[in-house]
């Protein structure tokens, strides 16, 4: 069951569609009534102050969290009813890399590859693509945050996903690391897939963003093409409580 290729990029099926998506933790509304759609071949940038619900939204789309109400679909598959189909198409890199420290870089990737049904590919290729060439045999414990981040990105990249979901990908990355993220994103969108990137670093994010979703207090403050936002985005996002 290798990854199904993304469906032909017919415009009618949105890559991602959310309708009144809501998630509550006890009494607090983390995300409330989000309705938006992301066409294939595009990158959605999710911005907003801390606690605005960015991470919760991403985890809902990646099926890591179950919505309290409302619906979300990835290439037509419901994130709750067809969770396994969604997981087969989505690669999610969370804010914490979540790699096994006492395993080496190569072993981490080999495990991820086997779990995605891609056991027999050479890992050296992926290590080189994320700038970790030659570090395959080093235990990840010795890696810096930036290097662990690159390994986590390689782990998502080798799954050749139709949907790439990145939570604060730029954390700890140098300039070359940022280019790596953008290569991954554009490669995914060119294949007909889409990417969702949540970040505070508007300067870096806007270069690849097609659409921007502004969250504030778990609600949709704004959703428009990137060009529309240009420079003043930071002030607006920051102004909401």
């Amino acid at each position, binding site marked *: 069951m290798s990854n199904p290729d993304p469906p032909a990029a017919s415009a009618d099926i949105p890559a991602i569609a959310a309708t009144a998506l809501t998630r*509550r*933790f*006890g*009494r607090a509304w983390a995300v409330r009534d989000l309705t938006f759609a992301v066409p294939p071949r595009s990158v959605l940038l999710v911005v907003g102050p801390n606690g605005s619900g960015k991470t919760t939204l991403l985890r809902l789309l990646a099926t890591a969290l179950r919505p309290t109400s409302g619906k979300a679909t990835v290439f037509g598959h419901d994130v709750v009813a067809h969770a396994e189909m969604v997981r087969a198409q989505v690669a999610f890199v969370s804010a914490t890399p979540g790699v096994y420290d006492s395993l080496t870089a190569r072993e981490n990737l080999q495990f991820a590859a086997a779990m995605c049904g891609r056991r027999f590919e050479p890992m050296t290729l992926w290590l080189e693509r994320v700038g970790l060439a030659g570090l395959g045999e080093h235990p990840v414990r010795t890696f810096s945050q930036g290097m662990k981040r690159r390994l986590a990105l390689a782990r998502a990249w080798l799954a050749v996903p139709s949907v790439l979901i990145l939570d604060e990908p730029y954390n700890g990355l140098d300039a070359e690391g940022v280019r790596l993220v953008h290569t991954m994103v554009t490669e995914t969108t060119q294949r007909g897939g889409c990417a969702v990137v949540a970040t505070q670093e508007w300067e870096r994010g806007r270069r690849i963003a097609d659409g921007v979703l502004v969250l504030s207090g778990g609600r949709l403050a704004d959703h428009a093409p990137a060009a529309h936002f240009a420079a003043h985005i930071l002030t607006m996002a920051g102004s909401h409580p």
Partner: protein
Amino acid sequence: MRGQTFLGAIALGLLAAGAYVGLVASPPDAFQGEYVRIMYAHVPNAWVAYVAFAITCVASALYLAKRTPVYDYIAHSATELGVVFTGLALVTGSIWGRPVWGTWWTWDARLVTTAVLFFIYLGALLVRGLADDPRRGARLAAVVSIVGFLDVPVIHYSVVWFRTLHQPASLTRGDIKIAPPMLAALLLGLLAFTVLFAYLLTLRIRLARAEDAGEAA
């Protein structure tokens, strides 16, 4: 509220009648003398505890299948009641054993199984309380309750066979031939406790529902 107190009143009446028959109206036992009266307090507790755990297991399975909160309220309430009544069964069991057999604790299969049940369901309650998310806590408690209930018959028979090698099945609870009047006292006690259990269960379920509503308001 009216139905609730009505049930409570019936339970109270039956308990009083049961106590009266158990303590006064029924004859002492040939072998145990007056101490047989403790049996009327011990057996109903154990019976209700097993009923509670059967309800817990069914409600837990339904909750996992259907995920409707009401099944979780029932499972949670039945587990808590089960732990209370198992505790009482163990205490009254050992109080009964002390004068009649001279020991607080006999390794009789039924007592051991009841004790094991107490810990399994205490575990289920703790798992529910210590989980990081209330909904997940309910699911984990359901899993523990189901495994626990499936395990009870195996535990019971393994304890029975494990002990019989050393000590013949000791004469506790139902084994002794019960004279009719004593049987009446016992059955009245069982009925009274069953109605009491129904009353407590409905009360506890309403509490669980109210607390959940309060939590998620």
